[in-house]
């Protein structure tokens, strides 16, 4: 693969994006890619909008991308997909979790949660909306939503050359492995 691929993971502080990017990058490194990943800490973790960028290919220079350059946007929260969508290439894909977390201005009635986000995304980009929360509950733990989304991301990118189950085993505590493997497989099926 000559061309560098760009993944943008976005959501709200506390949704487990860092863990997903850790597993994702570990898998990509194992597959022999050059990998760079960039994240922003600090202020962002207090319930703010967060983003992590992962780039992989034969040789990666910049750790970050600008607007119009992501191959895929994985949004852990619905409204965040719309916030970050300008970072996608015109032919980029969206994987969006059909899950709402109202921000404070919405919670206190100063703003409205946007309606029709998924429809609007679908009009412009190839969009896959999944209900990671429902899938995670079916698996047995709502907190595995992030790994469901990892499964959906791996499927969308066709990253089949990596043994993801093995990578999950290496990066999670023993007692969390089974349920997260199930969540990952569920995400692959959605």
């Amino acid at each position, binding site marked *: 693969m000559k061309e560098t691929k760009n993944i943008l993971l976005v959501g709200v502080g506390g949704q487990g994006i860092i863990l997903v990017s850790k597993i994702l990058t570990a898998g990509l490194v194992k597959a022999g890619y050059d990998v760079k990943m960039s994240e922003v800490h*600090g*202020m962002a973790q*207090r319930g*703010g909008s967060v983003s992590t960028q992962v780039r992989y290919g034969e040789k990666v*220079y910049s*750790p970050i991308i600008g607007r119009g*350059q992501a191959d895929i946007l994985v949004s852990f929260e619905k409204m965040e997909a719309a916030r970050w969508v300008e970072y996608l290439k015109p032919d980029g894909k969206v994987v969006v979790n059909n899950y709402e977390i109202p921000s404070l*201005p919405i919670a206190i009635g100063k703003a409205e949660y946007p309606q029709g986000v998924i429809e609007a995304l679908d009009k412009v980009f190839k969009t896959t909306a999944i209900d990671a929360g429902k899938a995670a509950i079916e698996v047995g733990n709502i907190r595995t939503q992030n790994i469901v989304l990892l499964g959906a991301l791996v499927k969308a990118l066709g990253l089949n050359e990596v043994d993801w189950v093995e990578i999950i085993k290496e990066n999670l505590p023993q007692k969390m492995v089974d349920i997260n493997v199930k969540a990952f497989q569920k995400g692959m099926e959605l």
Partner: protein
Amino acid sequence: MKKLMSGNEAIARGAYEAGVTIAAAYPGTPSTEILEHMVDYKDVIYSEWAPNEKVAAEVAIGGSIAGSRSLAAMKHVGVNVAADPIFTYAYLGVNGGFVLVSADDPSMHSSQNEQDNRYYAKFAKMAMIEPSDSQEAKDFLVEAYNISEQFDIPVLFRVTTRICHSKSIVELGERQEVGHKPYIKNINKYVATPANAKRLHVVVEERLKALEKFANTSALNKVEYNDTKIGILTASVSYQYAKEVFGDKASYLKLGFTYPLPMDLIREFASKVDTLYVIEELEPFMEEQIKAAGIKCIGKELIPNIYELNPDIVAKAMLNETTEVKSVDVEIAARPPVLCPGCPHRGFFYAISKKKNTVVAGDIGCYTLGAMPPLEGIDTCICMGAGISAAMGMAKSFEVSGRDTKVFGVVGDSTFFHSGITGAIDIVYNKGKMVPVVLDNRITGMTGHQENPGTGKTLMGEDAVEIDIVEVLKSIGYKKVAVVDPCDLKAMNAVIDESMVSTEPYAIVTKRPCILIKGLEPSKVKCQVKTDKCKKCKMCLKVGCPAVFFKDGASYIDKSMCVGCEVCMQVCKFDAIEKVGE
């Protein structure tokens, strides 16, 4: 062995491989994880959270004088705090190698200004090294110690958010067992009297000349010749952006050693390319010096000096290329960072925001978020410590101008030890008619939970003396130090009211641990709205808790977020919020 590492992790690894034995820092984004990872090597490196950056720098300087390879790390504004010892240490020179890591934050992802600390190298007359990825962060740090000892000079190791918080693949090396240099008393070198300083300034200038010569041949500076129509001089992460945009369609002079600049090397490179471009983030630090040396180049005419760069910005600036961007037709609400559900600061800010005719000077930390709507409980935020001392100035100004406004000065526990303590002394000493407030949540919160002198633990995980803020304030001379649980609004209000009429020095310490502290038992008690009793007055929304929301004409509390702090319950006038799950 290869490993995916953040720049900060790689700096800690570099310190290990360089044979560092002393490391000190005060936490600050994006530098914090350097010392957090230093603990991975605690068998061979002593590391500490110092109360502030000046102390951190001085501890590392002392370590260096005594013969250890030493490191101090801080965010860009921290270097302002540490500047005093740094400037003089550049005159004295080192014994064991000394490196000051400055982590700058272009685009201010988590900072109050966008200062470009490369100027500190020129200003203080230190050598400067800038890595462009994690591998270089590790390797160049090892080289920084060699240079520091070879040229008897402190080295400024300057990184930025995208170096610190980006991960890339690093090939690990072995630790150099450099040991400790013998400490030999040397008054002429280590005592900065005017007489010594006068002599040393001459030495400093000679040192810089020798360093410039060295820079011209240093392996840290690399020339890559491709097509010579475009020649790009760049450093740090900007090199990666330039490579991303131009690939092998341009020639590069990529600098890792950036002060003093290798002017001969630059002149030679400039002569071999048609046009020399300088691609650097923030200020024209290199460009100004290159132009002053009479070398023609193009820099800030094209490249913006505000905010961080990325490949897209570089392409647009240099090639006038615009990327096609598609947006969607949705109106998005803002998602600002907020005080967490159950945050102990909420109670104080709610209470103070209801007091008429008050002004609250704030400080740096999670509590800065108390300025956000709906709480709006803070009037100012400047730097660490100013929460107390700027409040003192405001109180004096109101006193002089005859304005009857009560001033409160807010700091956290970590920032109290950082530099709030000196402001607290000023108030008593100079009869300030204002109230210092220490919001003690038992941890350094915003940077992700570091220990501090009040927590009873050290960075290396050892038990420590827990310095008692209340006793410190009493010993300074505060006649009344009120200790209160900020989430008990009645008590919080009573304390604020009492402080406003007190004629003696009065300080407030709110005590309640951050809800995110690891190991704290999560509360089983939650708050819940009794829908039949809710009058839809929206009072509960005024506490600004992310768990409380208004939907379809009624208030609700998200059980998954609520930690049962009961602040919303206390503001409800209709008893429509109850506790469940006891």
